[in-house]
């Protein structure tokens, strides 16, 4: 069967799902962040797929934007994790619960 839109979409879904599971299951905050990157990538893939299919470069431009945003997010996120680590000396998400009622 020739590769069609569906194939790429299924791939993207799988990657998205794996990323989602990583976010939900893992306790290490760095891995959670990496899983989020995974999800972002899958979204990018969908964008590019449809850009290819519709012949409009808009999809790719937006994928570019998403990448920029992802970069910013990673920078700030890691800075926060660093600060958190310095304070609580742990990367375990379950142990960071001071915002309790």
């Amino acid at each position: 069967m020739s590769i069609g839109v569906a194939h790429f979409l299924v791939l993207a879904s799988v990657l998205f799902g794996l990323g989602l599971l990583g976010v939900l299951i893992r306790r290490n905050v760095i891995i959670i962040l990496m899983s989020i990157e995974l999800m972002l990538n899958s979204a990018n893939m969908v964008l590019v797929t449809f850009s290819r299919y519709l012949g409009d470069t808009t999809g790719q431009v937006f994928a570019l934007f998403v990448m920029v945003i992802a970069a910013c997010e990673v920078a700030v996120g890691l800075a926060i994790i660093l600060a958190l680590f310095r304070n609580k000396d742990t990367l375990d998400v379950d142990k960071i619960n001071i915002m309790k009622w």
Partner: protein
Amino acid sequence: MAGTVSETIYALSFYSLAVMCVVAALVVISARNYVVSALWLVVCFVGVAGIYVLLKAPFLAMVQILVYAGAIMVLFVMLVMLMDAGKLEPGARLQGVIRSLAAVAGAVIMLALITLSSSMARSKTEWSPWPVVEPGTTERIGADLFTRYALPFEALTLLLLAAVVSALYLARRQEGGE
């Protein structure tokens, strides 16, 4: 004839890249050592870059490698080295009821998405074969980026500025910011 050959090469490339991505992703989410996870994420990103090439988006593929694999992952690895916790997470076992439920929900979502996507393959009338398009070259992306999408482009520069400043502030040495 040429069509079927390129088609086969195309399909082969796709499947190998797909497997590479999925396997790498699996390792990322299940590895006990987060350094390992980081490195395998790089692999995944490279795979995704390959997918982009298949999707006639060479510029984006290069940017993917430069930014994601090159910059972001380097950042990750650098931070990981900085925070040498020395303590590795005792297994990615599911801890607590919430986590299990969450895993189930996540799996359900994944399945739903997959179903949705694959259902598109079956509808023959909607999705005709790939049209012939121009590849997403630098010129074409650039043309769009600086004309039609100039505003979001400028806005993103502001975002970058904000991100730089906040990251600097948050990560400073004394009384680390909140």
